[in-house]
């Protein structure tokens, strides 16, 4: 077993994990943070995306042992108390989710994307999203939501 000290959504955890335990399983089953979903376990669908030290990663392609000393953000940490994150609010406004299974991964990838993009257009947003599978929405409302938040951020000082 390997000792892992990790901060997830601002809370510190110390856990002993098997060397091969996936980060996705660690978050879901060791820490009980089941908002991170697993859709393919081979890094294509993007549902399990979380942010590790300010980079979005596929938690099904990373080991829990690799996040020792890291700061992890998951969908559970996105809202500020009662107030939804602007992306969450935009997704609700634009009906950008149906079953909601792929949504946490898309939200986390979009948070990371907006943090490192300068006024992205729809095409760039669609390219970023091409690493995520959503079978319900046909994507357009998701693109619209991310674009709306990007425009909002562009306007704020």
């Amino acid at each position, binding site marked *: 077993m390997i000792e892992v000290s990790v901060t997830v959504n601002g809370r510190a955890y110390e856990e002993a994990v098997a060397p091969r335990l996936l980060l996705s399983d660690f978050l879901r089953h060791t820490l009980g943070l089941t908002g991170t*979903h697993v859709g393919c376990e*081979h890094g294509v*669908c993007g549902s399990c995306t979380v942010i590790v030290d300010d980079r979005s990663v596929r938690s099904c392609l990373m080991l829990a042992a690799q996040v020792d000393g890291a700061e992890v953000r*998951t969908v559970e940490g996105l809202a500020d108390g009662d107030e939804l994150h602007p992306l969450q609010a935009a997704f609700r406004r634009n009906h950008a989710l149906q079953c909601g299974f792929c949504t946490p991964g898309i939200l986390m990838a979009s948070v990371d994307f907006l943090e490192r993009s300068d006024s992205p257009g729809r095409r760039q947003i*669609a390219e970023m999203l091409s690493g995520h599978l959503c079978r319900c929405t046909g994507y*357009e*409302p998701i693109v619209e939501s991310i674009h709306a938040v990007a425009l909002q951020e562009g306007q704020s000082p």
Partner: protein
Amino acid sequence: MSWVGKPLERIEDETLLRGRGRFIDDLNPVPGAYHAAVVRSPYAAAHLTSIDASAALASPGVLAVVTGQQVAELTKPFHAVIDTPVAFRAAAVEEVRYAGEPVAVVVARDRYLAEDAAEMVAVEYEPAAPVLTPLDAVAAGAIVSDRSFVYGDPLGKLEEADLVVTESFTFPRWTGTPVEGFGVIADWSAADDALTVWTNFQGPFTLYMAAAAALGLPRSKLRLITPPDSGGSFGIKAAVYTYVVLMGAVSRHLGVPVRWIEDRLEHLAASAASTERVTEVTAGFTNDGKLISLGYDVVEDVGAYLRAPEPATLYRMHGSLSGAYTVQDVSARNRVVLTNRCPTGLNRGFGGPQLYFALEGTMAIAAARLGIDPVDLAHRNLVAAGEFPYTTPTGAIYDSGDYAVCLDDALATVGYAEHRRRQAAARADGRLVGIGIACVVEPSVSNMGYISLAETAQERSGGLPKSGNTEGATISMSPGGGVVVQISTTPQGQGHRTVVSQVVADQLGLEPGDIEVVSVLDTHVNAWSIASGNYSSRFSAMGVAAVQQAAEELTAAIKQIAAHELECAVLDVELRDGKAAVVGQQDAAVSLRRIAGKAHWNPEALPDGVAPGLRFTSFVSAPGLEPAASDDTIASSAVHGFVADVAVVEVDRETGAVTVLDYATTHDAGTLLNPRLVEGQVRGGFAHGAGVALMERLAYDEDGNLITASFMDYLCMTASEVPPLRSSHIETPSPFTALGAKGLGEGNTMSAPVTIANAVRDALGIERLELPLTPSRVWELIEPLS
């Protein structure tokens, strides 16, 4: 104040957006559940000679390896409407019939250990030659059903035709493949001789009955509970019922609770898929473009086993074989064949994509041969607005519509005339631009009796006739005046809870936020029937009708109590703003909370005829869904929407890539209950249809191995590929449903494949093509032209 019809945001969303959804793998409903991994056949066809589990049993954390033989000792083969020569069991015993078929289950302390051990189970096979295509199956004699239907005199009419189109259409195997796969948690209780199962099943509950029968638990000993959330399905999760049997038998055999969460490779290889269908069409037209004779010769590949509800894919559309057209003389020969591929099942569109690929493809080919614009050809054949309700030659009753207006609306949306002008200019420049249309009748609310058409009238006469489509719902008012509604439509993202809150809020004079809607289905608690569940786009008609009726009963009781208290006539009471009030009087009112309090706390004060408790369960069945008639006509669905689509595409001469330049769709789904959710269904259904038109196919190698077994190989549409879509609506309310609504979640999955195909036909000036229209395939079509 009417909440129905408003584009309200969803009550489901905040929970899901916060990562607080509760999907099957998030649940731990029983302590100490063991984890299962399924050992699967690597061969598409083989004799299974031995299983050696000794190495697996010695692996750390392994409790047991349960073989197909041990499962068979606790279960019966599954039944379907047709008897076939091969017994279909939850796990194979002596013969495997597709790559991915379960042969054993490893049960261990955690999933990692179970998967380790699954690889150590040594299974010996004697491989055989697989049968992999529908036509090879015909040649091999693997036909399990062969029925012919004649309505009118199609052969006689063919002799009167000026043009006869005979063409073959092959619709590929594909899958809606939801991002969440199957999950089952099974808990056998020896004390009760009963099984409780949590699973992301979606109905129809005919399949719950099939699972109970296979487990030998036909009465009340199988309790099935769905999780609060399900990560999409598109029909596919109906097939989880065979794993309910498999894990139920394993739990029973071992006496421990067992959980199994499917992975993506298992899902693509061994869950469910659409049928692959080969259709030979023979269609007769007059010179002025009237379709006067229509014949189908269909070979339907249902895979390795005829798994219930198959061959439903073939009969779901039977009432609509004539599509949106007035042709009266129709025939069909339906052959169902077995191949060595994963069994088929529900998949969005369910028979519609296959039917319309043939019918609307034929219309496009005929238009080109007759030198008539395809729009004009459609207009000369569409059922006219004055003809509704319209009975088709095969027995469907089309409830309402205005097909011509709908088609014209789609043409106006896309700018058809302008696109034709631009196409001419582009062609003059040597570019390959094409325009395709399709007109699609979208049935919803399936008749539980249509599958019996797979039997002859004489064979049917021996059994219990089946008909209708029943749904139930329960509404209650708590002692504090809170309203809770329980539905049995097992949503997987469609927003049923939101729509129900709108419907009930209107009834009770409350706001949608005041209504709690519970979509968990517990077979020992909910009001459900065999038709319950989420398929054939039945929610907006049947789910809503059941809720509406239960809410009406609650409303009637509230009004009686209020009238008693306010000393007025029941007819003078109206419900508004959380109160029961006397019509036209400002002050004479009593709060719903007080009425609820009375019903629970002071039943002695209730007026005669009002029972205490305020809890009402209602069941409704769709009208007009008679059993199949002796002449083989059937009202296969209760409600019929309409979709008209226009696609404009350009084909790249160098690469064969197809780009959709413009796409318009106009729906008539009757009254729209929540336009925001409607748009979501349209866009989602379109993405699936465009996917199978351009990218998606389950492909197998010559040995029967699935070669699109991961998301790297099975190409789902992504945000970069999904074509632009413009949608609009006309509303002709259904006279057959509670609020005039029709289903609409599947229409574009039916229409988009053939619309895009017709546009490519137009671009290239060809007739025969196969889906998906991948660049390599299209390039091969261009090559001989240049």
